[in-house]
């Protein structure tokens, strides 16, 4: 009976993760629907398998059962947590991230730009002065960095192509207003304007923040 129960377990896990909207912590949105369909098929297979009631010797090995039970336990018992500081440090955050694909100028009002949109915008037109004064309103997590002046930080997000395994961090340099010093890893909403400053030996566009407010991680924690 172990195989049908495992299938039911995986099916139930995928369906509830879909219903709670937490699949975005793990995979790119285009794979969310396939994950739900997979969950439903697994539930159906498990149900048919349970009804069939074959002899006991059909079952999988103890090793296979234990291996498959492990991620189920982790998935059901631990709260889903988007990637954070540890992965950002391991993967490395560039002060000037490389272009991913062709650089397309981003349309729309700057207030609606994500961190990724800003980085594309800065790459489409590398002269920082031409961006100075544009309003910025972005959400991300705080990364402290030794290359930045005292008290400054990067507001960062991960770019995900497929799943958490390929997540690549990107970030904007933030000069916080006096008194604001959020902890590393905290999620913040940053409001301000684009300013130009010398950082890491180069003139760069940075965010001169007027407010840095603590916030919850968004339902879709990554950018795509």
């Amino acid at each position, binding site marked *: 009976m172990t*195989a049908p129960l495992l299938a039911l377990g995986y099916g139930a896990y995928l369906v509830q993760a879909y219903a709670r909207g937490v699949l975005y*912590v793990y995979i790119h949105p285009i794979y969310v629907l396939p994950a739900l369909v997979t969950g439903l098929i697994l539930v159906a297979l498990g149900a048919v398998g349970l009804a*069939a009631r074959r002899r006991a010797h059909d079952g999988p090995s103890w090793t296979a059962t234990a291996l498959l039970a492990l*991620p189920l336990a*982790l998935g059901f018992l631990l709260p889903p947590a988007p990637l954070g500081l540890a992965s950002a440090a391991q993967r490395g955050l560039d002060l000037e991230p490389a272009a991913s694909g062709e650089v397309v100028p981003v349309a729309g009002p700057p207030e609606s730009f994500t961190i990724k949109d800003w980085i594309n915008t800065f790459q489409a037109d590398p002269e920082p002065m031409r961006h100075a004064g544009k309003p910025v309103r972005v959400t991300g997590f705080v990364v402290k960095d030794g290359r930045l002046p005292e008290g400054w930080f990067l507001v960062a997000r991960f770019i995900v192509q497929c799943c958490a395994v*390929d997540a690549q961090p990107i970030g904007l340099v933030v000069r916080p207003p006096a008194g604001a010093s959020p902890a590393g890893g905290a999620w913040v909403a940053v409001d301000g304007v684009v300013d130009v400053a010398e950082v890491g030996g180069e003139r760069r566009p940075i965010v001169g923040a007027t407010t840095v407010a603590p916030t919850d991680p968004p339902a879709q924690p990554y950018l795509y």
Partner: protein
Amino acid sequence: MTGRLQDGVTIFLGVLIEAIPFLLLGVLVSQLLARVSRSERGFTWLPRGRLASLASMAGLGALFPVCECGNVPVARRLVTRGVPVAAAMVFLLSAPALNPVVALSTWAAFREEPSIVLYRLGFTFVIAVGVGLLLSLHPRPAALLNPRWTKAAAEDDGAHEGEGPVRRFARGALAEFVEMGAVLVVGAALAALVQTVVPRQALLGIGQGPVVSVAAMMLLAVALSVCSTVDAFVALAYAGTFTNGSLVAFLVFGPMIDIKAILLMLTIFSARAVALVALVVAEAVFLVGLGLNYFAG
């Protein structure tokens, strides 16, 4: 819980949630093949000549546009249905990369450099068929298979004749899903471990050496174990810093040989056969990467 452990769990579950739909798709196709091709005639439509039949197996991937996790159950079924062992290996090596979905995603990622798409498809074909030719010289192809699996497959085919088709389908699919799923769990755990422990900057420092960059990207392909349908986007992250030869090496090598693929291959083939194939493929891809760096500018 520390942040690193937490991120490791997220990556581990991420790889699994991403791969399980493809695995299940492969298992369902395999079970369909098992029911449809019960007749003795089997795969008589394969061309007669050795090279022609191997080459046509490489083209079969176009019909199964899934990643390596989905192809292994299909390949297992092909072998039990009488497809030669060497031909099944050609299918396994080529199908993850030689299919329209992967061609499209690679092209989407490298629109600026379409030659990378052609190199990827061309060299995958050549290397897969080459390995197939090599294996087809083996005097006793059965020795290339995992002995435990051949025994189980033989018992499985005869048993449970009195069962209804739906139940038999479900039972077969469940058994296969659990067996392959357990292997996938190990692969996902290893990928997550490497991802949280090895700093990526350590790899990036060596991106411009024509020799060392190829080796580094091949190691990265093994370690990351990203599905072939999206690995082009991962490679893209290194496009600025790494040589073109090393990017092609990553794109050709990753779908053939990575942690997940090796573990899954071991459920069909003997450890010696898998080691031999991994070695030959690694050498061939390495030479391709070097050749591109030195001769294709």
